[in-house]
């Protein structure tokens, strides 16, 4: 039995990445390197107001004084920040095209290949898409329909100009530029991303979605997303990502801020499938992402769901600050690492208000030679009377060369807080496979069933269309080049 299992596991260890193509399109970029000139170049390209440029430059000054965070359980090679392009846009994107007829057909084809049609009539019913290609937003669909409800869904570059008051008020209010070096970096050079505003008592009738694509070589992608849900509103937002297959590593350092006012709810789902590198660990995206939600108002709710299968290195902790009384924070995560991928991911739940509740469900799956760490921080501040947290962290190991680590921190300054923590580490072992096969299932069916069963609790949190997609992605991440 050993030989066959090893063979199958080895097959799984070779990932197949079907999004690895490059679109051959002429790009407009500044010189490599990070300095005031680069920042001014970006700001000018985006035709930004003065205050935005100053904000960027201030962030840059902070970045200069900061060093990279080093506490994660990751081996991160030195990143030469002067050897990266900080902006890349398909030629002719000084102004965002008014409609798709002005967009280079090559770009539209790229998104079609990725399965993200931009023509509205073809867009999945009920999903509005904002597509970001390298540093610029290519198209936002369904915009008109949403405007009728007072919902703003556009690129952040546009919002800086069209809704400066909202941007000024909230940008950096949840993730201050000086939070850590990657937030300072992003604040200095962010290029594009989405902006969403849901007015009072409005339930956004469709899923809002952003699709990020890194295309140009040696280019960093620094997306910035800001979502504001006003009192009593609701929005569900989805995010997907891919990148071409390259030998060199690329940097992606995003900042996402969510703000939920009284009785508002934001559901944020991510399927992250950046290029993970090849089976020897060459290439792949460095995914250093800061995502933080503020439950500002009472009875507000923010729910993060993520399926992380890509990237060479993932460093990501979608968090919730539970400020409003009775507010709720949730984090559901599946992180799959294969080959030489490394992931250090988890969440931070900060309970400030009374009766605040948080729930963390984390599922880590390690294959090949990969390392997968859950890192969580649950804290209860002095006034968080009767706050509660439930945490469940499960790890699944496939093979015997990978590692799973669970690092939960709990910090309570209020003695009425209640914390529950459950953790498990299990292995798909020979006996389980033998058992499944004795009941007539093939090796692959058995592994896929065991892993999907393991992730089910999280996958069922995803919106319908996404859940099916995510399930497929999970199977692909396992299958490798099964022929």
């Amino acid at each position, binding site marked *: 039995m050993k030989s066959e299992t090893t063979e199958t596991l080895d097959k799984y260890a070779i990932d197949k990445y079907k999004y690895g193509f490059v679109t051959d399109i002429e790009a407009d970029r500044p010189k490599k390197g990070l300095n005031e000139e680069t920042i001014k170049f970006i700001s000018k390209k985006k035709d930004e107001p003065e205050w935005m440029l100053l904000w960027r430059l201030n962030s840059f000054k902070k970045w200069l004084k900061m060093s990279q965070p080093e506490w994660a359980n990751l081996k991160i090679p030195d990143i030469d920040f002067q050897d990266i392009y900080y902006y890349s846009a398909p030629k002719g994107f000084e102004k965002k095209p008014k409609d798709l007829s002005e967009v280079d057909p090559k770009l539209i084809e790229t998104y079609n290949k990725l399965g993200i049609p931009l023509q509205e009539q073809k867009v999945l019913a009920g999903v509005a898409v904002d597509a970001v290609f390298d540093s610029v937003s290519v198209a936002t669909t369904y915009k008109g329909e949403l405007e009728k409800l007072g919902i703003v869904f556009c690129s952040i570059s546009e919002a800086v100009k069209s809704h400066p008051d909202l941007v000024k008020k909230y940008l950096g209010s949840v993730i201050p530029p000086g939070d850590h070096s990657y937030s300072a970096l992003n604040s200095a050079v962010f290029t594009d991303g989405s902006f969403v505003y849901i007015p009072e008592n409005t339930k956004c009738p469709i899923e809002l979605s952003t699709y990020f694509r890194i295309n140009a070589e040696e280019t960093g992608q620094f997306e910035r997303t800001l979502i504001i849900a006003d009192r009593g509103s609701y929005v569900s937002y989805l995010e997907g990502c891919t990148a071409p297959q390259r030998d060199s590593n690329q940097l992606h350092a995003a900042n996402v801020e969510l703000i939920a006012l009284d009785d508002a709810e934001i559901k944020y789902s991510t399927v992250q499938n950046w290029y993970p590198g090849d089976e020897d660990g060459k290439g792949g995206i460095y995914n250093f992402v800061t995502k933080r939600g503020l439950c500002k108002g009472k009875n507000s709710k923010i729910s993060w769901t993520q399926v992380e299968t890509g990237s060479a290195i993932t460093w990501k902790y979608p968090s919730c600050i539970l400020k409003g009384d009775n507010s709720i924070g949730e984090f559901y995560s599946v992180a799959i690492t294969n080959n030489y991928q490394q992931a250090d991911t988890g969440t931070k739940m900060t309970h400030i208000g009374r009766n605040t509740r948080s729930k963390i469900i984390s599922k880590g799956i390690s294959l090949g030679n990969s390392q997968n760490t859950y890192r969580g921080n649950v804290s209860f501040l002095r006034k968080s009377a009767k706050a509660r947290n439930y945490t469940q962290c499960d790890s699944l190991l496939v093979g015997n060369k990978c590692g799973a680590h669970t690092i939960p921190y709990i910090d309570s300054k209020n003695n009425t807080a209640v914390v529950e923590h459950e953790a498990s580490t299990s292995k798909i072992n020979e006996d389980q496979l033998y058992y499944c*096969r*004795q009941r007539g299932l*093939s090796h692959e069916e058995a592994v896929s069933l065991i892993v999907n069963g393991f*992730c089910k*609790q999280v996958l069922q949190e995803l919106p319908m269309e996404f859940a099916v997609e995510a399930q497929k992605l999970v199977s692909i991440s396992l299958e490798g080049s099964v022929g």
Partner: protein
Amino acid sequence: MIFLNINNLNVTIDGKQILRDFNLNINLGEVHAIMGPNGSGKSTLANVLAGNEDYEVKSGKIIFKDQNLFDLNIEERAQLGIFLAFQYPVEIPGVNITPFLQASLNSRLKNQNKEEVDNLDFAKILRSKAQELGINSEMLKRSINTGFSGGEKKRYEILQMSILNPEFAIFDETDSGLDVDALRIVTEGINKFKTNNNSFLIITHYQKLLDYIKPDFVHVMRDGSIVKSGDISLASEIEESGYKNF
């Protein structure tokens, strides 16, 4: 048709010989029991029949339903109608029995060129079989064998058998770790499932199990081969004076 014929089977594991010139013939509709002391090779026999690749078959032949078993891997044998009720059924956290057993059943139906069952029909089958066996519906919501007691695990094996409907079921020391009540429930399940169109191989250490399931043949195994065959009276003989006379 030859149902099951094991001819001069020699099997080793890690270079150590376990089965020596082992012979056994089972016809459709028969219940055979194999008894023997620890280390006599009983569980090896069960695992070799199921296709466990940890064992090395040195020589000999097994014919099942006119097919050479050594041409088939574990899942192909299962699909052909071999069911092994494990001595220690393994826990599979997070996997519910419904999708698991539905996939199992469909792999078997496909092998028989029959139409596969859909989710709805399968849920009905599962519920009615569970009811028949006195398994409550709460248990069906749990993960396979996870946190089950010894008795619950064995009842789960019986449930799977009755749904997969194999022609040949092997019970590997099913009685180990069961109290009298659990043993009665499990054996009732086996008796209910028994027809003229299926056969059983019951591997056990004690006679107790055979009080509930009446085998047609009893074989005594020692050092890798059958040393004596007879009827149920052989089991009583062992109960009285142990294995020392064999």
